[in-house]
């Protein structure tokens, strides 16, 4: 009796509420995230393998994966240098309107994606502000894969900026000064001192932007034109299937996207870990 109460005391944590908070966390994750996922998988369980395969591997669907994952990847990659630059400017320079620019960065977060899609289409269409300038050059944006990429770049930008910005803000100025006194040029300092410090944040920002882009629907459907085999994204295919009451087909696609996204994010996470470990070795 006595010893067991002593034991209980010794295993007690300093921070109270561990059991309660962990329980809540698991329950919350379960209801909000895991349950819908399970439902998705369960729904497809009713299909035979052949049915599943035809649903997820028809040429039109394969083409949609390519455009979805391909454009998302390119958009996220493009957002990395641009986002870092934007964060750099916002953190390092004082200029009038800095707060305004800072607020603007969040706009793609806040804007209903359909609004963004319509606005982008208006600008990049043949007679739009940018579209009519590009038209003579033979560059078409709206209703082409380029348009998909533009929309995904737009919605992904804040992720990179907002993950890199705080890290950049907390970067000690002494590091750059130390590099300067050691004779490094600005370019060398940036490449060898600043970038490595930002790398984890950049990778996280990239992963977030990519994940968001893969699931994006609203802004893309307006600008892409949704031509099958050409500019049709997977989320749109899912909606189309739902419209046709093909719930199983829709969830089958969803499963593929889920697994694909998860695999890519997991891979990024793994690379990140390994990078850190290599740096430590």
């Amino acid at each position, binding site marked *: 009796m006595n010893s067991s109460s002593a034991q209980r005391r010794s295993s007690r944590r300093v921070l109270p509420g561990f059991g309660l908070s962990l329980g809540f966390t698991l329950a919350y994750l379960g209801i909000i995230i895991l349950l819908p996922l399970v439902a998705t998988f369960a729904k497809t369980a009713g299909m035979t393998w052949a049915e599943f395969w035809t649903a997820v591997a028809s040429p039109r669907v394969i083409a949609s994966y390519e455009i979805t994952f391909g454009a998302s990847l390119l958009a996220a990659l493009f957002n990395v240098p641009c986002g870092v630059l934007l964060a750099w400017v916002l953190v390092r320079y004082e200029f009038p309107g800095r707060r305004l620019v800072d607020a603007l960065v969040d706009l793609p977060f806040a804007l209903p994606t359909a609004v963004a899609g319509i606005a982008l289409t208006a600008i990049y269409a043949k007679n739009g502000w940018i579209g009519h300038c590009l038209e003579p050059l033979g560059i078409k944006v709206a209703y082409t894969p380029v348009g998909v990429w533009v929309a995904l770049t737009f919605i992904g930008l804040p992720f990179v900026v907002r993950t890199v910005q705080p890290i950049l803000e907390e970067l*000690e100025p*002494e*590091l750059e*000064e*130390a*590099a*300067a*006194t*050691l*004779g*490094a*040029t600005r370019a*060398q300092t940036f490449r*060898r*001192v600043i970038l*490595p*410090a930002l*790398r984890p944040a950049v990778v996280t920002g990239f992963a977030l932007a990519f994940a968001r882009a893969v699931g994006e629907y609203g802004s893309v459907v307006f600008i892409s034109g949704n031509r099958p085999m050409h500019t049709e994204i997977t989320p749109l295919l899912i909606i189309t299937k739902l419209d046709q009451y093909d719930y199983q087909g829709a969830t089958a696609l969803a499963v593929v996207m889920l697994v694909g996204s998860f695999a890519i994010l997991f891979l990024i996470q793994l690379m990140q870990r390994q990078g850190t470990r290599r*740096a*430590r070795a």
Partner: protein
Amino acid sequence: MSIEARNISKHFGSYTALGGVSLKVETGRLTALLGPSGSGKTTLLRIIAGLEFPDVTADPTAGRVLFHGADVSDMPAGQRGVGFVFQHYALFKHMTVFDNIAFGLTVRPRKTRPSRPEIADRVNELLRLVQLDNLGGRMPDQLSGGQRQRVALARALAMQPKVLLLDEPFGALDAQVRKELRRWLRQLHEQLHVTTVFVTHDQEEALELADEVVVMNQAKIEQVGQPQEVYDRPASPFVIEFLGNVNRLAAGESRLRTPGKDVLYVRPHDVDIQHGSAIRHGLAARVLHIFSAGNYGRVTLARADTGEHFEAEVARDRLRDLQLKQGDDVSVMFRHVRLFPRGEFTEADVRDGKLTETKAGAVPAHGAGEHI
């Protein structure tokens, strides 16, 4: 390589960090910039390094920094050939200790860059010098504070700087490591003889380590001199108060009457205590507290006339002979005092109750015969 700073001013907005400061550091010296925070010492160091630039004034000879007579004022930090060590080490966290130290060599343009084996030799030599032989492969966050600071020093030394500048190099370390590293830095200086300037707010550190101490206060230099000189002959009330323990007493009261002087300073070890109030030249006081550790006892006293508290440092043997108790009424003699009116000063030894002036400031000395 000697360093000269000529009439340096620096403002940050409306705040004056340096108000026309000039300084000369001789080749091979170990110099301390000593002062409280906000005195401008770090700013001066950073201006010497080229990390900060002095205000531009109408006078073209003002705001200049010279290394060995050559004007480096317009040179960026990287070209001045200075090694700089930061208070918080500023090590590159993603690089190993080895790569940190090699950094200065590897960023050189290809023409002047040493070959890989040469760099490795140099880094290993430096690792030996800072006594971290086997830690080249570690990451900075796997080292203790003292080790990190030594890595920072090795990194600065790698490019064979002509001038070594250290900004509060021991500021972030605990007392024990601090002492050890201080001694070690002194040894290193004897070995390398690089002209070194370090910033500190710790008077003990400055006095113990430096060949020359520059005492700074409120954007100005108060005094420059060898540690002994600065300690024994402080040029201003600020210096005497900043360097070591000192009692500040009102002059012009009772037996401390000294015409024209307002403040009297006496170091605790210049205070002698005798029993009873009968001593002719003594100052009556009461013992408030006695604490003895080591060779000295610290006695806190209260002046009978003004009630001011002050401290005496008495040798342990003497303390035993006196058999002082709390609440005892005693007579106090000062061996050496410094007297300051507003702005000027007089310094005096006390013999047989007479002040014998040894040094005087701008004001003509008077009151030399006064009893103390």
